[in-house]
């Protein structure tokens, strides 16, 4: 076991890693390179379905009910079979209607009704709370298992773990999920963090499973053999075989089939966070594969725990307890992190989803009714932060209150049953044209009430909040209304009982309400739009024949005022301009009725992305963008269009379908094309910048080469004249001799500088041949003369593979590096001499294998460099020496890069420097050259 402090430190470091990953992804997205726009990330993020419940609770379920945990994952596999039709439709509708949540989706279909949205929000909120509570329970209970009994500082951590985790979750969620109001409600950073978490939890669970199955036991066969040999009394009641088992199996299957799409968080990652329909294709097989893998060791772990003599009632923690008690501390920490990943991912996405629904569908309508709260519209973001915090806190509070009454799996299933209530209205909404608002309200409302009464209320009773008599005798002693035996049905298990009655009421009243109450014209249009989503897109009604008489300035002001109710003035202005741009009227002063309709459409869509379609519609209605005259004229336009077509209604429908289909395809292609153009433009820009840079360097190089060449001639004359004078005055006085030697030295220095400049700017391209490095290197080092006090060491690895290199050019590299090293150690030696400190200068040249290539290192224990010097060391003309050219390392890098290799530098001030050169392996090198 570990102490609490270590575990919380590891957890914080892990969360920090996720946080940095998410921020990096967000930054990339802001630069236009979305890493989340990827089918693998999309598929992995769907793994959020496997929460703390899967991670710990499935083993618990397997230990008490055998294979009954499996339908929770078989159900989603069933649903996935139909994704290409169902999910693709949902995604297409989301894109065209700017849907931000499951409540928004239902509301958008049913006449953009605020009442429907509010009801769906309440269901999502109440249904999500138990599930968030479940995640807190998973983190807190496993923390207490993995840590040893607390003392000192640990006591404080153990006692405050809950609040610490709550704070972490709130901060993390707000920063990554609610930092700003995004019209698309997409959170690339958060989605990437969730995808990474899903990968970690899969890896951790598989590691635990392999350890239990193959290290604690001798594989699957051994486990099954032992469990069959165990006397039944020892496992009595663990594997249920009665008839209710079959009914329960089917109940779980139905619940899970709907939960994979209609749990609010699943809807969010599946539909709202979807970047492209084609990502569904990968998710269709990768996500079921993920579920299969994460479940394959559930039963072995459960059997392993039972065979080791653990209590089946504590089986939720087998996956952690088995490695821990076997002394595998770090495996246990990995398992704990996997469990924490499963739990935190769910908490973050769920809280964001529910908070968005609360602000858009509960708060904003209330603000609309109570004028005194109108200022809150401008504080939408802060309201959302409060909602996120509230949702997480209530989840934690629920865990404290009711958590001890149930095992994990029982809590999770309450949420599944709540999500089931969304299934009829959503599926009905996208496949049944006659489904309407009244039916949706009746179905959703009744289903929710039955769920609350038959499943959640008994949970409260078991937590001691309500008297037991309610379950035993019903309210007011009416036994027919007992929550778990509604209308006298006593043969069904509580869960099956809830599913049966809630679905019966939900579907029944949805159909009945839809058939009994008429649809409005607008609702019919929406129904048509939703049902035909895969073959249609919003109609185009532009016509150039209408008179432009409407004053655009007035309309612009109305639109800006409308945005101003929810956003600050700058954002309002930007959004207004965007809408004008979308309507193609930004340059006009007067517009036609058709253009006004376009503007209206653009404003509604933009607003819906931030506050939901129902609130957007209400706000637009209140803003009164159309006057009575304009509304009348718009109706006339539609009537004219219909009259002029002269076709039968069926033919008209077919034609509209055909053109809308074409429009949808064109829009999609245009978007893809635009994406490609942006990408190519970016690449082109980068290439152009590189070309300009090279051209400049080339011109500079030519100039330098000419000047250098011209300087060499006079230098030669000076040198020969000095030589002549030296010969002539050979026996002259000491002073003259000294000055002549100085001329000779300075001319030599100038010549070296010119040589290096020419090498850098005009040097011939490398011409590589295969060869052995060690003998060549030995030869160079033998020829080099270094001061006697400096030890030139060599450590050359034997049996190095041959590489392609230009012997002459690379010779320059080695000489430059060794000379630099010698100068560094000499400088330090001189300094040591002044202070009297003991110092032994040494330069070491090492060779070793690096992948398919060879690494040459020149290491010294000289003066080293500070950070700033090291940063500029390879830049041309940068030097810290009084007489250096500043080209030595620049030439090294140039030559090494010509070989397709890499050069790196490690240094520490006053400790020494190591420069490493990597020359790639034979074939690669040859290709490069």
């Amino acid at each position: 076991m570990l102490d609490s402090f270590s575990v919380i430190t590891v957890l914080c470091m892990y969360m920090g890693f996720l946080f940095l990953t998410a921020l990096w992804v967000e930054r990339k997205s802001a630069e236009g390179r979305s890493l989340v726009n990827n089918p693998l990330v999309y598929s992995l993020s769907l793994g959020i379905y496997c929460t703390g419940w899967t991670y710990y609770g499935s083993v618990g379920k397997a230990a008490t009910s055998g294979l009954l945990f499996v339908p929770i994952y078989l159900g989603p596999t069933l649903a996935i079979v139909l994704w290409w039709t169902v999910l693709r439709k949902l995604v297409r509708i989301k894109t065209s209607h700017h849907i931000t949540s499951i409540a928004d989706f239902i509301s958008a279909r049913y006449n953009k009704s605020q009442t429907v949205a509010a009801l769906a929000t309440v269901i999502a909120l109440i249904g999500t709370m138990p599930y968030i509570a479940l995640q807190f329970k998973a983190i807190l209970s496993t923390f207490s298992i993995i840590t040893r009994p607390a003392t000192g500082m640990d006591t404080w951590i153990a006692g405050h773990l809950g609040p610490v985790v709550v704070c972490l979750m709130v901060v993390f969620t707000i920063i990554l999920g609610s930092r700003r109001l995004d019209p698309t409600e997409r959170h690339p950073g958060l989605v990437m963090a969730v995808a990474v978490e899903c990968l970690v939890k899969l890896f951790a669970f598989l590691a635990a499973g392999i350890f239990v199955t193959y290290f604690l036991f001798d594989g699957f066969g051994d486990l099954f053999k032992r469990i069959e040999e165990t006397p039944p009394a020892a496992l009595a009641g663990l594997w249920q075989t009665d008839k209710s088992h079959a009914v329960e199996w089917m109940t779980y299957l139905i619940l899970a089939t709907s939960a994979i799409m209609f749990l609010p968080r699943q809807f969010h990652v599946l539909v709202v966070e979807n970047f492209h329909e084609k990502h569904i294709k990968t998710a269709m097989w990768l996500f079921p594969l993920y579920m299969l893998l994460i479940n394959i060791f559930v039963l072995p772990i459960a059997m392993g725990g039972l065979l080791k003599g653990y209590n089946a009632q504590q089986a939720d923690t087998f996956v952690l307890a088995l490695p821990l008690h076997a002394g595998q501390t770090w495996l246990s920490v990995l398992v704990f992190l996997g469990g924490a990943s499963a739990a935190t991912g769910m908490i973050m996405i769920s809280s964001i989803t529910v908070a968005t629904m609360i602000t858009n569908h509960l708060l904003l309508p209330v603000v609309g009714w109570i004028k005194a709260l109108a200022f809150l519209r401008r504080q939408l973001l802060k309201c959302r932060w409060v909602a996120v915090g509230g949702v997480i806190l209530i989840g934690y509070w629920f865990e404290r209150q009711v958590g001890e009454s149930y095992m994990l799996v029982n809590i999770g299933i309450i949420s599944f049953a709540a999500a089931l209530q969304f299934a009829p209205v959503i599926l009905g909404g996208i496949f049944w044209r006659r489904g309407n608002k009244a039916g949706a309200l009746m179905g959703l409302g009744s289903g929710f009430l039955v769920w609350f009464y038959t499943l959640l209320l008994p949970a409260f009773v078991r937590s001691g909040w309500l008297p037991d008599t309610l379950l035993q005798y019903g309210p007011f002693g009416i036994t027919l209304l007992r929550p778990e035996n509604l209308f006298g049905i006593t043969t069904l298990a509580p869960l099956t009982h809830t599913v049966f009655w809630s679905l019966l009421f939900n579907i029944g009243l949805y159909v009945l309400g839809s058939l009994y109450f008429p649809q409005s014209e607008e609702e019919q249009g929406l129904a048509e739009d939703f049902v035909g989503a895969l073959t249609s897109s919003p109609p185009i009604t532009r016509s150039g024949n209408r008179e432009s008489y409407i004053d655009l300035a007035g309309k612009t002001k109305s639109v800006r005022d409308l945005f101003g109710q929810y956003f600050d003035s700058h954002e309002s202005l930007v959004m207004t301009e965007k809408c004008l741009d979308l309507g193609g009227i930004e340059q006009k002063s007067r517009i036609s009725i058709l253009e006004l309709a376009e503007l209206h459409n653009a404003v509604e869509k933009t607003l819906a992305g931030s506050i939901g379609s129902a609130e957007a519609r209400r706000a637009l209605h209140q803003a009164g963008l159309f006057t009575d005259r304009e509304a009348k004229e718009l109706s006339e336009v539609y009537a004219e269009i219909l009259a002029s077509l002269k076709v039968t209604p069926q033919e008209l429908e077919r034609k509209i379908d055909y053109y809308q289909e074409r429009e949808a395809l064109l829009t999609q292609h245009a978007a893809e094309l635009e994406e490609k153009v942006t990408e190519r433009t970016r690449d082109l820009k980068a290439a152009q910048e590189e070309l300009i840079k090279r051209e400049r360097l080339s011109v500079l190089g030519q100039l330098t080469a000419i000047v250098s060449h011209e300087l060499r001639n006079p230098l030669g004359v000076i040198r020969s004249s000095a030589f002549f004078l030296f010969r002539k005055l050979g026996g002259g006085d000491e002073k003259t001799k000294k000055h002549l030697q100085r001329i000779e030295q300075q001319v030599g220095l100038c010549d070296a500088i010119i040589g290096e400049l020419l090498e850098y700017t005009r040097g011939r391209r490398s011409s590589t041949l295969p060869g052995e490095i060690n003998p060549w290197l030995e030869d160079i080092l033998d020829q080099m003369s270094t001061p006697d006090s400096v030890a030139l060491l060599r450590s050359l690895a034997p049996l190095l593979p041959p590489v392609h290199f230009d012997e002459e050019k690379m010779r320059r590299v080695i000489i430059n590096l060794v000379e630099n090293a010698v100068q560094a150690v000499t400088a330090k030696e001189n300094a040591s001499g002044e202070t009297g400190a003991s110092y032994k200068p040494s330069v070491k040249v090492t060779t070793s294998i690096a992948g398919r290539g060879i690494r040459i290192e020149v290491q010294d224990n000289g003066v080293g460099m500070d950070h700033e010097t090291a940063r500029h060391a390879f830049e041309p003309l940068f030097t810290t020496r009084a007489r250096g050219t500043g080209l030595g390392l620049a030439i090294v890098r140039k030559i090494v890069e010509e070989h397709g290799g890499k050069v790196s530098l490690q240094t520490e001030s006053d400790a020494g420097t190591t420069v490493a050169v990597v020359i790639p392996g034979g074939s690669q090198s040859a290709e490069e050259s």
Partner: protein
Amino acid sequence: MERLRALLRQTEFHVLLFFVCLFLFGWPLATSADLEQLELMFVYIFVAWTIVVLLLFLVSRSQKDVDDSE
């Protein structure tokens, strides 16, 4: 091969596959799960599940052409 692809990409085939899966993972299976057959049931479920995943892979690959043509 093209015929097989055409089959796999049809919505009607998906519906059929849905009901086949419902049969594989549903009622008959649920009534026969007990302790004596635990190992057999375990093997059956995971083998069947793997086959369904494989089929889903083929279904998703068959959609490629449709999508590309779009």
